[in-house]
């Protein structure tokens, strides 16, 4: 049994226990006893939700202790500092299902509660050689320390919980791409104008059968455009991670059970990436050197660079502006997303339109101009093989498929040369002519295609009854009729006979 500490009491029997300025019995250390490892995780989760673990982390020691009966429990020891800190810890421990003690070296007595506002003292010390003696109003127990637990290793071992809402949170992202996916991803980012940094990280071989280290590419993306999120999160080999703390990131769609921001054990310059529950986290002792993905953009070099020489004579200044020319190219066709239909091809388009599928009709956009009909289809115009096909080299700038612009300036430069008109789509003809079609002139092909049909107003107004009686169409679904499907069918000739 414990004795309650009284007001103005000056002497205590427990070794290392003293009274603080408020008169509360307090040792130099606080101790938390938790029955199991999952309660320890619960304690961390609860504590980090309300405040930072940084203030006690420096003095925190987590140990597995064993009683004489063989029961194993978990203790956390930390610098008590003041009764304010101990009060906060004590409340959370109570919620997590543990007990709080205070003491200095081996003997720890129950920390104050509602029954004893100034704490407790022991009437008699346990005479045991145990490393730890705990005195509680319900029990007194001696424990031996079995092993220490490293908090960092503990947090690393915890699996992230599924939480789809995290995928929707805006903000910077880290991406990991398995080797082989990196060129496609880099060019995808460059083409799409997404700002990103890329670095190469290496891990030791996973087994002795692998000779080479495991190489993965790390991307830092300030903001992933929403249209790319489905592709990047669902493609095997790619992983999108959300930075949750300095030096730690969790896979998008998952959440670590402990608030890592309040638990600064993963400091920079290292990086820990928590993956799916079935996969071990990826640890990097140091973030690799990162560079802008634009550095990997396709380049064209010239054999000799011209050396500029300034001239003193203004008359010798040469104007170097060139007219734009389109020349046939042997490059494979890519991004062919538009066609320009004119003249006799318009009749052909009418015929082809009858055979177009509903999906093509719905997605294709068409603009009618005096120069002809322009049709665009974002995923490729191959379904409408009529007219002169165009490929998109820059947003709002298209040139004939199979042609390249000369001089070979970057598409951005070419677009700027035309004044970078907004709300217009530029079509460059093979004769160098440029036509600007307003974006609002493009309407759905589905809507534009059908001629106005004759109709007559219906006199019936019983729409409610009609809707109630409407039934769906009978639709045939065919499947395999099984082995020997004709076994019940005699020859037609036999039946006639």
């Amino acid at each position, binding site marked *: 049994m414990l004795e309650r500490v009284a007001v103005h009491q000056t002497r205590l029997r427990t070794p290392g226990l003293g009274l603080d300025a408020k008169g509360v019995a307090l040792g130099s250390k606080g101790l938390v006893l938790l029955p199991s490892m999952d309660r320890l995780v619960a304690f961390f989760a609860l504590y980090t939700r309300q405040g930072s673990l940084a203030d006690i982390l420096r003095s925190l020691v987590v140990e597995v202790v064993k009683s004489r009966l063989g029961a194993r429990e978990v203790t956390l020891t930390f610098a008590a500092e003041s009764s304010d800190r101990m009060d906060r810890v004590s409340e959370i421990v109570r919620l997590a299902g543990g007990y709080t003690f205070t003491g200095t070296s081996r003997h720890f007595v129950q920390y104050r509660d509602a029954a004893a506002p100034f704490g407790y003292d022991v009437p008699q010390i346990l005479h045991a050689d145990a490393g730890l003696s705990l005195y509680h109003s319900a029990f007194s127990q001696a424990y031996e320390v079995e092993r220490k637990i490293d908090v960092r290793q503990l947090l690393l071992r915890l699996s992230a919980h599924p939480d789809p809402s995290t995928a929707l949170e805006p903000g910077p992202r880290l991406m990991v791409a398995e080797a082989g996916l990196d060129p496609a991803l880099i060019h995808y980012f460059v083409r799409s104008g997404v700002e990103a940094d890329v670095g190469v990280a290496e891990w030791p071989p996973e087994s002795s059968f692998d000779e080479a280290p495991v190489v993965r590419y790390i991307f830092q993306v300030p903001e992933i455009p929403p249209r790319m999120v489905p592709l990047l999160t669902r493609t095997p080999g790619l992983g999108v991670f959300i930075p949750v703390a300095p030096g730690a990131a969790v896979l998008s769609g998952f959440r670590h059970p402990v608030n890592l921001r309040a638990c600064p054990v993963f400091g920079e310059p290292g990086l820990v990436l928590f993956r799916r529950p079935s996969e071990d986290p990826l640890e990097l002792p140091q973030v690799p050197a990162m560079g802008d993905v634009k550095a990997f953009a396709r380049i064209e070099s010239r054999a000799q660079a011209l050396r500029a020489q300034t001239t003193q004579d203004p008359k010798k200044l040469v104007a170097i502006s060139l007219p734009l020319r389109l020349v046939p190219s042997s490059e494979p066709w890519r991004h062919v997303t538009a066609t320009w239909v004119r003249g006799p091809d318009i009749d052909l388009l009418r015929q082809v339109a009858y055979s177009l*599928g509903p999906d093509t009709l719905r997605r294709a956009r068409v603009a009618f101009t005096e120069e002809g009909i322009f049709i665009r289809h974002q995923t490729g115009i191959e379904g409408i093989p009529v007219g002169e096909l165009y490929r998109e080299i820059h947003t709002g700038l298209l040139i004939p498929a199979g042609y390249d612009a000369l001089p070979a300036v970057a598409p951005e430069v070419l677009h700027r040369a035309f004044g970078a008109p907004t709300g217009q789509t530029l079509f460059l003809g093979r004769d160098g002519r440029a036509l600007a079609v307003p974006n609002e002139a493009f309407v759905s092909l589905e809507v534009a295609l059908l001629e106005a049909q004759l109709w007559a107003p219906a006199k019936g107004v019983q729409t409610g009854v009609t809707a109630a009686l409407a039934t769906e169409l009978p639709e*045939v679904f065919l499947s395999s009729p099984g082995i020997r499907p004709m076994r019940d069918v005699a020859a037609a000739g036999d039946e006639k006979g």
Partner: protein
Amino acid sequence: MADDLAERFDELVTQVLAPLVLGGRIEPVRPLGPRLGLAIGEGRKISDSELRSQLDVARVRVARLLAPVDTVDEVTPEDVALVAALNDLLQASNLELSGAFSRSRHAKLLDCAMVLASSVSRPRTIAEALARHTLFARALEVIRTDTTVSWWTGSASFRGQPAPTRLTRWRELRRVREDTRRIPLVDMGTDVPHVTSDMWLDALNVWLARSPLTDLATLARRSPAFRWSEPSLSLIATVPGRSLAFRALSRQRSADVHTALDRAAASLQAELRPAEPLVKAFAQEVGTGLAMFSKKTAA
């Protein structure tokens, strides 16, 4: 054997007959052939009382478009045989019916379906004709959805089956395009090995003729072109039958009706020549009736 037949009967009713009347998914059963098709409905009734009740409600709804009735006759063995014939017609268009060395099965099954349909007796009473029409009134509304999936390296077509999801994954990366086409019953015979469009339309015409009121109610159809048959002539030979036929025709465009009747009269088969006066009288009567009807509605 009897249990097996009962099971096949239930299968035919739930997978073909019920969706044909109520709408929804028709899943043709294994081909039945003429002998089994004629025998399967003998002495059997629809066991599911709820389904029977739903069918009755839907059939009365169809019947009331033509006649003021509150009940229709129960499904007869002849009706079931016609459902079996339709099932075999649909299976004849199923490319999974045959393998590389058995492509002639399609033509054979089509022949069997025609034999089965022509073995079914014509309606003996007006009520029977009306009851049969209530079962098959929606036959020409039956559709099949064909899907073509193309991606950056190839394409695949699926006839009456949705495309497997493995072919439509990663739409953007693989540039997957999915086109679906709805094929009406009259066009389901195209691209079937050893079966020409004419063979398919002939079989469909034979089958439609067995339900004369359905045949007349869809007279303005594009194909197969309406032609007079023994059951349809028997129907219009009686006064009540002619009234029902006129009501069915009045729901169609009068210009189409005139065209179809003229074309059918001109192509009357040799063995039906004695009925030519009846056909002409009926066409004249329909012409007068429709003219009066249009005047009345305009007023």
